């Protein structure tokens, strides 16, 4: 296995842990909050899944930088100016700020969890797009914005179907 393939495998692994973590946080959260309280066991599961998500984030960021350096030294600088890559960075920034705002209770949990869930999937899908033809940055961000609205509504719809009412 060459270095580039190894870096890509590690990067995808980070993404998988992140997307999986975000999915399970959403599932565990909705399941736990159904009875109105979150007991210590449920809280423990949430914390464990959040650790997996943060590990995934760390792995994908560190391997992402290694990939950038690889392209830089390999003379493929054009890849660093790919709008898909910059869209991924923007979403990553949104994810990180959302994490802090959730900790500070400045964002309602329903909104924050929807942002986290949709953002992780967007980064994952944009990562798949990176191997194909390039797309304009503005178009990607508009898609992301639309995905946030639709994803947020769908998640809220699922919660209402389950009888969960969260403050928005």
């Amino acid at each position: 296995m060459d270095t580039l393939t190894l870096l890509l495998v590690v990067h995808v692994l980070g993404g998988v842990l992140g997307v999986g973590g975000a999915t399970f946080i959403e599932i565990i959260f909705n399941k736990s909050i159904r009875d109105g309280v979150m007991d210590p066991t449920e809280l423990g599961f949430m914390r464990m899944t959040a650790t997996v998500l943060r590990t995934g984030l760390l792995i994908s960021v560190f391997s992402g930088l290694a990939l950038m350096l690889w392209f830089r030294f390999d003379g493929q600088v054009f890849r660093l100016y790919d709008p898909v890559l910059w869209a991924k960075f923007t979403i990553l920034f949104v994810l990180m700020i959302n994490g802090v705002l959730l900790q500070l209770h400045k964002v309602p949990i329903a909104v924050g969890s929807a942002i986290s869930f949709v953002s992780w999937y967007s980064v994952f899908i944009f990562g798949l797009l990176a191997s194909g033809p390039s797309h304009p940055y503005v178009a990607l961000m508009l898609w992301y914005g639309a995905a946030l609205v639709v994803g947020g509504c769908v998640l809220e719809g699922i919660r209402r179907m389950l009888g969960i009412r969260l403050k928005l």
Partner: protein
Amino acid sequence: MTTDLLFGFVALHAYSALAAGTFFYMSMLEAANLHRTRAKRLNSYAFLALLFSVLAWGLKLTILREYFQEAASGAGDFVPSSTVPLFEVLQTYIFPVVVLLAIMLFMVVWREGHTIQENSSARYIILWTSFFGFALSAVLMFLGVLIP
């Protein structure tokens, strides 16, 4: 300096800036935890952010010195790019700011870290200092990779 060695310095610099940004972010997350901020942990994060930002600055200065020496002598593998002056100006101004923010963060955490639960102004100073440190470190990391 050989190109391989220089690439090593560039990689180390970018990773130091990333590590500094990561520790700034972790300080921010720890300070944002309204239920249980652990002062000891906050202290370690602030110290590591300071350590890595100083390391990143030192490595950047080495790289810039090498670049300008080679550019002046006309030797080496570097091809001067029209974007270099902009990168250089940005880096020259941003690096000392990041180190200064890291020093500020460390001092505030050292003095007020244990009172953060009841001292909301200290919490907000730590939050904003680490946020700016995180954002600027991220900018420096990108510039570090993009600079020829």
